[in-house]
C-alpha cells in the first residue's frame, strides 16, 4: 500500500508577516500557511471523527531577519540534536535568497520569539516540513529585495538581478547595492503577489551539495552549549528524589539532618515532590541522600510478568489495515511465526537536563528538549504561571532519540527554582535518566501468510501488540477515539502488493512509562515483517530479493522499492559468494515515504554474532545534503544494529535495569561494521531520513544469521542457541 502524499497547500502572499526594525532591518515571518504535517493529520482526523474543529491558531513557523549589516539570521523552532537540519535548512534559504554561504545563520529559538512548534523536533519531519517553506520565504525575500534594489539603483525591475547578497544592474555590474543597504533605505515593504517562482535545480549553489555542517566548528572547540552546560548568574544546583521501583509513589519525607549539611539552600518537600537545592551539585546529591524518604511500593514486577501483559487478541484491538478476504484465504496450511522485541533505553549520551529561573512574574527555562512548547506548557502548569509568561529555550541536545520530548527535568528544575528563589540547574545522573524516562515498549507480532508456488503471497496477516508509544503524549479523548496507538503500529502495515491483507494492533497497559523511541514502532514491526518475509522465501526456496520483487505493489512506491532492491543487490555483491564463514541477509522498509533496503554480512563465532558489513540504500526523494544524509544512514543503521545484537532493558525485582552504561550494553566502536551507503534521488522533494534507516537492519542481520546457521531467531536482541 503506497502512502500518497496529499497535495500540498501552496503558500500565498497572505502567509507572510513583514516587519521593519527601528534601526533598519527587515523581518519576514512565515505564518500558518503550512501546518506541520503531524498537526495536519491530527486535525484531519478530528474533523472526520466529528471531534472539535481544527481551528488551530496562526503562528509563524520560521522567522527571517535581514539586518542592515551582518549575516541573515533564520530562526526556527527545530532543534539540532545531530541530524544536521540547521545545515540543510541554511542551504535552502541561502540558495533562494542568493547569499554567500558564510552570511546565513540558522538559530534555534525559544517560545519567547513567537515561533511555536506544537510538533516538536521529531518524526523525521524537520527538513521535509520546513525545506519548501524556507525556500519559498527565501525566494520571496529575494524578490522583495530585488524590486526595492531596482528602485534605489534607478533601474527598471526587469533590468536588475539579485545575486550573492547584492542587487546588480544587468547593464553595468559596477552598479550594485547590497541587501544590507537596501534594508537600511526601505521603510515600507510589499510582498509580491503572486509569489515568485523558486529556483530551478540547475541554479542551485548549495541545495543538493555536501555543504559542511554549520554547527561543527563550535563543536570541535567545545563551545557548543548543551543543556547540561547551562550556567546562569547566581545559579544553584538541584537534585530530585525519584523512585527506583516501578509504580512507587511518595509516602513521606522529612528533611532531618539534610537541611544542615554544607551548601544546602533549600530542602523542598511538597505533596508528591522532594528535592534539594544547594550551592554545588555534589552537595545537592549528598543532601538528597540524607533526606528521610519513604515510598509506597506496589508490586515488585518481574520481566516475565511484563512480557505476559503484551498479548495479542486480548483487550482493545483495532484493525489498522484491511484489504480483501484474509479469513477466507488463510487456511490451516498458512505459515506462521511469532516475534518479540524487548524494552530498550534511549541512552542518549547527555542525560536529561534543564535549568530554570522562576521569578514571581515569570520564568525562563533552558532545556535539552525536543519540544520547547511542551516544556512551556508543563512548567506553566507546575508553577501556576501563565503560559505567556514562561519562556522555554531549547539548547543543543546531546542526543534525544525521542526521549527528550518529555518535560520532566524542566518541571522539576522549575519547582526547585520557584521554591529556592534562585536559578537552578538539574542534571540527571545516569541511573535517574534510565529509570525516569519513557522507554521503548516491548512488542509482540504474529504473522501468518499463504504463498503460492510461483512466489506470490496470496494473503498475509499481521497481529501486533505493544505498550503505548504516542498516546501518553496526546489528550485522552484522542486516544479513546483512535483506539490503536499510531506510534506503536508505525511500520506494522504490509507494504507489499498482496491482494488479501490485514493488520491489527493491540495495546498493552504497562506499569511503567513507554513512549517515543527513534522510529517508534518501526524497528520492532519491521523486524517481524521482514524476518517473516525471509521465512516465506525460504519456505518456497526462492531468493529473498527476488521474492520481495515479485510481491511489490504495482504503483509508484513499488517501482521505487524495486530500484532500491536492485541497487542494494548490486552494491552488496549479493550475487557473489560471501567471504568464507559469512552469509548475507536482506530486508526492506518504507517509512515516511522513504525507502531503505539493507544487506547485512555476518559471521558467527561460538555464540557470538559479528556483523562485518552493512550495505544501505535509501530513496528519500531528494537529498538536500548528501553527506549529511549518509551520516544519518550510517548512524541510524548502527543504532539499529545495536538493538539487534545488544540492547535489552529488563524488569528485575520491580526495577528497570541495568542502571548505567556498561551493564546496559550498546554498540561500541570495535563492533561497528563497515558501512556502505548509496543514495537514490527520485524527485525534488526531501522525505525524512532520521528514522527510516532503523527499519531494515535488525531483520537483515537475523536473516543473515539464519542463512549461516539455520537458526531462526525471532527475538531481539538476537542470541544464538
Amino acid at each position, binding site marked *: 500500500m503506497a502512502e500518497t502524499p496529499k497535495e500540498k497547500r501552496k503558500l500565498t502572499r497572505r502567509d507572510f508577516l513583514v516587519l521593519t526594525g527601528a534601526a533598519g532591518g527587515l523581518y519576514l515571518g512565515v505564518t500558518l500557511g503550512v501546518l506541520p504535517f503531524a498537526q495536519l493529520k491530527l486535525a484531519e482526523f478530528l474533523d472526520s471523527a466529528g471531534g472539535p474543529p481544527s481551528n488551530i491558531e496562526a503562528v509563524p513557523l520560521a522567522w527571517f531577519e535581514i539586518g542592515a549589516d551582518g549575516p541573515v539570521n533564520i530562526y526556527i523552532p527545530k532543534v539540532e540534536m545531530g541530524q544536521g537540519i540547521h545545515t540543510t535548512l541554511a542551504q535552502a534559504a541561502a540558495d533562494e535568497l542568493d547569499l554567500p554561504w558564510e552570511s546565513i545563520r540558522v538559530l534555534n529559538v525559544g517560545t519567547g520569539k513567537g515561533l511555536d512548534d506544537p510538533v516538536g523536533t521529531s518524526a523525521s519531519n524537520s527538513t521535509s516540513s520546513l525545506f519548501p517553506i524556507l525556500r519559498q520565504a527565501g525566494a520571496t525575500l529575494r524578490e522583495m529585495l530585488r524590486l526595492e534594489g531596482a528602485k534605489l539603483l534607478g533601474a527598471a525591475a526587469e533590468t536588475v538581478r539579485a545575486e550573492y547578497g547584492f542587487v546588480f544592474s544587468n547593464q553595468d555590474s559596477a552598479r550594485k547595492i547590497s541587501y544590507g543597504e537596501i534594508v537600511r533605505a526601505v521603510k515600507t515593504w510589499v510582498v509580491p503577489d503572486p509569489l515568485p517562482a523558486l529556483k530551478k535545480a540547475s541554479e542551485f549553489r548549495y541545495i543538493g551539495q555536501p555543504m559542511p555542517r554549520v554547527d561543527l566548528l563550535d563543536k570541535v572547540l567545545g563551545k557548543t552549549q548543551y543543556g547540561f552546560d547551562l550556567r546562569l548568574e547566581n545559579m544553584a544546583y538541584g537534585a530530585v528524589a525519584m523512585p527506583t521501583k516501578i509504580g512507587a509513589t511518595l509516602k513521606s519525607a522529612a528533611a532531618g539532618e539534610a537541611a544542615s549539611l554544607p551548601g544546602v539552600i533549600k530542602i523542598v518537600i511538597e505533596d508528591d515532590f522532594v528535592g534539594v537545592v544547594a550551592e554545588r551539585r555534589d552537595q545537592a546529591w549528598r543532601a538528597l541522600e540524607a533526606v528521610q524518604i519513604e515510598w509506597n511500593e506496589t508490586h515488585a514486577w518481574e520481566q516475565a510478568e511484563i512480557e505476559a501483559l503484551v498479548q495479542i487478541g486480548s483487550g482493545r484491538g483495532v484493525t489498522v489495515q484491511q484489504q480483501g478476504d484474509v479469513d477466507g484465504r488463510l487456511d490451516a496450511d498458512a505459515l506462521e511465526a511469532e516475534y518479540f522485541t524487548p524494552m530498550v533505553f534511549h541512552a542518549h549520551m547527555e542525560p536529561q537536563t534543564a535549568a530554570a529561573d522562576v521569578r514571581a512574574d515569570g520564568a525562563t527555562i533552558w532545556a535539552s528538549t525536543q519540544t520547547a512548547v511542551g516544556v512551556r506548557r508543563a512548567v506553566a502548569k507546575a508553577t501556576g504561571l501563565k503560559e505567556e509568561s514562561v519562556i522555554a529555550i531549547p539548547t543543543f541536545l546531546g542526543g534525544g532519540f525521542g526521549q527528550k520530548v518529555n518535560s520532566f527535568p524542566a518541571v522539576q528544575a522549575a519547582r526547585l527554582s520557584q521554591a529556592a528563589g534562585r536559578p537552578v540547574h538539574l542534571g540527571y545522573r545516569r541511573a535517574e535518566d534510565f529509570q525516569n524516562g519513557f522507554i521503548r515498549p516491548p512488542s509482540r507480532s504474529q504473522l501468518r501468510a499463504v504463498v503460492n508456488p510461483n512466489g506470490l503471497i496470496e494473503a498475509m496477516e499481521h497481529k501486533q501488540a505493544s505498550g503505548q508509544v504516542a498516546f501518553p503524549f496526546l489528550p485522552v479523548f484522542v486516544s479513546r477515539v483512535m483506539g490503536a496507538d499510531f506510534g506503536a503500529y508505525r511500520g506494522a502495515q504490509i507494504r507489499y502488493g498482496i491482494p488479501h491483507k490485514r493488520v491489527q494492533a493491540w495495546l498493552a497497559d504497562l506499569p511503567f512509562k513507554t513512549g517515543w523511541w527513534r522510529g517508534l514502532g518501526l524497528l520492532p514491526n519491521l523486524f517481524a515483517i521482514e524476518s517473516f518475509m525471509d521465512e516465506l522465501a525460504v519456505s518456497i526456496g526462492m531468493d529473498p530479493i527476488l521474492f520481495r520483487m515479485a510481491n511489490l505493489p504495482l504503483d509508484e512506491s513499488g517501482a521505487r522499492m524495486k530500484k532500491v532492491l536492485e541497487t542494494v543487490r548490486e552494491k552488496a555483491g549479493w550475487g557473489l559468494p560471501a567471504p568464507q564463514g559469512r552469509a548475507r541477509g536482506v530486508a526492506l522498509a518504507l517509512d515516511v515515504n522513504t525507502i531503505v533496503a539493507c544487506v547485512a554480512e555476518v559471521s558467527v563465532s561460538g555464540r557470538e554474532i559479528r556483523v562485518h558489513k552493512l550495505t544501505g540504500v535509501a530513496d528519500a526523494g531528494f537529498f538536500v545534503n548528501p553527506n549529511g544524509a549518509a551520516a544519518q544512514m550510517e*548512524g541510524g543503521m548502527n543504532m539499529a544494529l545495536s538493538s539487534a545484537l545488544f540492547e535489552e532493558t529488563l524488569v528485575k525485582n520491580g526495577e528497570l535495569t541495568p542502571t548505567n552504561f*556498561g551493564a546496559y550494553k550498546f554498540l561500541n566502536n570495535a563492533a561497528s561494521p563497515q558501512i556502505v551507503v548509496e543514495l537514490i534521488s527520485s524527485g525534488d522533494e526531501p522525505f525524512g531520513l532520521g528514522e527510516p534507516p532503523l527499519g531494515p537492519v535488525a531483520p537483515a542481520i537475523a536473516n543473515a544469521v539464519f542463512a549461516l546457521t539455520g537458526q531462526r531467531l525471532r527475538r531481539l536482541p538476537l542470541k544464538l542457541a
Partner: protein
Amino acid sequence: MELSINGKNYTVDDTPDRPLLWVLRDELGLTGTKFGCGVGICGSCTIHLDGAAVRACLTPLSASAGKKIRTLEGLATENPDGSLSLHPVQQAFIELQVHQCGYCMSGQMMTAAALLEQNPKPTAEEIITAMDKNLCRCGSYPRIRQAVARAAEIAAGVQNG
C-alpha cells in the same frame, strides 16, 4: 590547590576527593568536558593528565594537582594575533564531518589526540583499540576511525587526501 589547565594556573579551594570533572565544569566553567555516565565507561569526560588520556569523572582533584591538565578547550593553539589554529584531530573531525549530536566527541577527540601523541602512525587496528574506549550513541564510529587516520596524516603534513 593549584591546577594547571590548558597552560593557565587556577587556584581552587575544594575537597581533594572531588572528581575533577565537576570542578572543571561547574566551578571553572570549562564545559567542553562532558558528563555521561560518571563511572568511567562512556569516555565523554576524557581529558589529558600529563599527556595521558584519563576519565575526569574518576580523577580526584588530589590526583590532578601539580600535573598538566588539558581539556578540549585547550586542544587548538592560540596564535599571537588571537586567532586559533585547530589541532589536526579537530581539522580531521571537521573534514570528515564526524559529529552528529557531538556530545561524546569531546572525549573522542581527546582520546584521539592522546593516541597520536604516543603513536603518530597508528594502524587501523590500533585506532580501533584506542577509540573503542569511547562510546557514541549517534553511531558515528566509521567516521571516527577515518578521522583519526586522517588526523595522523594531517599531523604528518599530508595535504588533502
